């Protein structure tokens, strides 16, 4: 698996798009720091960008990489390699190279700005950790979609729909349900609803870490009670881990049964 990981990783590292992605974050980091001049505010703005963009890029890159490397995959399948190591290697190659673009692209400008001396370092680290989690989650989901769809166009369509659903539509439905059932106690429902969507979960996690839970409205207090504690943090991070593990397991399951 490590050999496949190595080749996928270097293959991606040489592609133009990794540089574009890296350069985008580098530029974003620099611009935010110079315009804001305030590290914690820059972190909030970054959160808003990352929460939406990282899943999108993860999904698109994952699907694109799978379809583009089909021939390579077929070449590998005829070699004495396990299917699980072929696909996990490719998946990790994509997810790692995307995470690296994110971490380096944002990390470098912040490092020069004096992150290590600042108190925002924990907020910033949490931002990068959730960003990496989101990359791993959505790349895995993208691989799942691509493995289940022979047709490229369909695969891309489903991938975009998935992103649209989790990034935008889910929130809308969630809010609607809160308004619709406002007469009932909604603490547990809203907690569970947030847990079930990795994007919402990441956003809540960061917002609470930044101590601006007042922005979250009337459930904010409950959220603070839950997510603000160490227990909440552990549960959230485990949920994010689960969001990585389940799709990865399905990649293994699906790839073992697929015809090439």
């Amino acid at each position, binding site marked *: 698996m490590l050999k496949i990981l190595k080749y996928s990783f270097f293959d991606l590292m040489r592609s133009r798009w990794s540089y574009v992605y890296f350069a985008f974050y580098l530029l974003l980091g620099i611009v935010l720091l110079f315009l804001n001049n305030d590290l914690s505010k820059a972190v909030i703005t970054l959160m808003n960008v990352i929460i939406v963009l990282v899943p999108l890029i993860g999904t698109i890159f994952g699907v694109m990489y799978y379809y583009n490397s089909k021939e390579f995959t*077929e070449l590998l399948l005829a070699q004495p390699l396990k299917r699980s190591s072929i696909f996990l290697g490719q998946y990790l190659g994509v997810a790692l190279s995307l995470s690296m673009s994110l971490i380096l692209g944002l990390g470098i400008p912040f490092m020069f700005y004096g992150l290590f001396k600042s108190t925002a370092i924990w907020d910033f680290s949490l931002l990068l950790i959730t960003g990496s989690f989101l990359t791993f989650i959505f790349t895995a989901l993208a691989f799942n979609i691509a493995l289940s769809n022979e047709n490229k166009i369909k695969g891309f369509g489903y991938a975009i729909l998935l992103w649209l659903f989790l990034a935008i539509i889910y929130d809308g439905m969630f809010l609607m349900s809160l308004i619709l059932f406002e007469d009932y106690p909604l603490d547990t429902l809203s907690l569970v609803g947030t847990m079930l969507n990795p994007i919402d979960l990441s956003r809540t996690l960061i917002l609470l870490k930044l101590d601006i839970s007042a922005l979250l409205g009337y459930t904010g207090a409950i959220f603070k009670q839950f997510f603000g504690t160490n227990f909440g943090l552990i549960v959230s991070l485990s949920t994010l881990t689960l969001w990585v593990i389940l799709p990865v397991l399905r990649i293994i399951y699906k790839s073992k049964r697929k015809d090439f």
Partner: protein
Amino acid sequence: MVTIQNLHKKFNKNVVLSGVNLDINAGGIFAVLGPNGSGKTTLIKSILGMVIPNEGNINVLGNNIKNNSNYRSQIDYLPQIANFPSNLKVKELIKMIKDLRGNHTKESDLIKLFKLDPFLDKKLGNLSGGTKQKVNIVLTFMFDSPLIILDEPTTGLDPISLIRLKELIQKEKDKGKTILITSHIMSFVEEVSDEIVFLLEGKIYFKGSISDLKIKTNQPDFEHAIASILTNNHA
């Protein structure tokens, strides 16, 4: 060498193989023939484990291939369509496959044989179809495995390369290897193969030598013998 028992495979509702039984003994060149869509490639991919059969058993060199990947180190496979990652250089691809299989290889003789030296530093995406096929052949033959599977090896080759390929196949056969070939070029099949396996509608219609086939179909030459099977069964 290869034993296939009661192999069934369908893609959705499309039945491709329905109960194939086949024994391939060690040593010699076997040609798998059949009309388009008769399941030749599916059969070969099943042996390689790329297609998962719905039913049936396949043994390669005494190993059941189900949930197994190590047996593939005993097989050299030439895929039908030579599509490689286009941003890799020829040299890098060869190095990579060597790294993945970890055998000692003899690629330099093959590169010389097919005059690929000037292409080693070119990217695979910029090569012509025939050159890609030559790279494909080098990648297949550079390992010294007892079973060689060639899916349409002649595609896109110029006459000189074709002659070299035939010599290469003959040389490997003389070493006692088993070679499985599919091809639509009947003259090529007639020239190289010892035995043929004819697939028709997902079953093995005929297995034996070319002269047996001529007797069975009562035709004087090989091409007409094949044609007569097809017309008698499809007309």
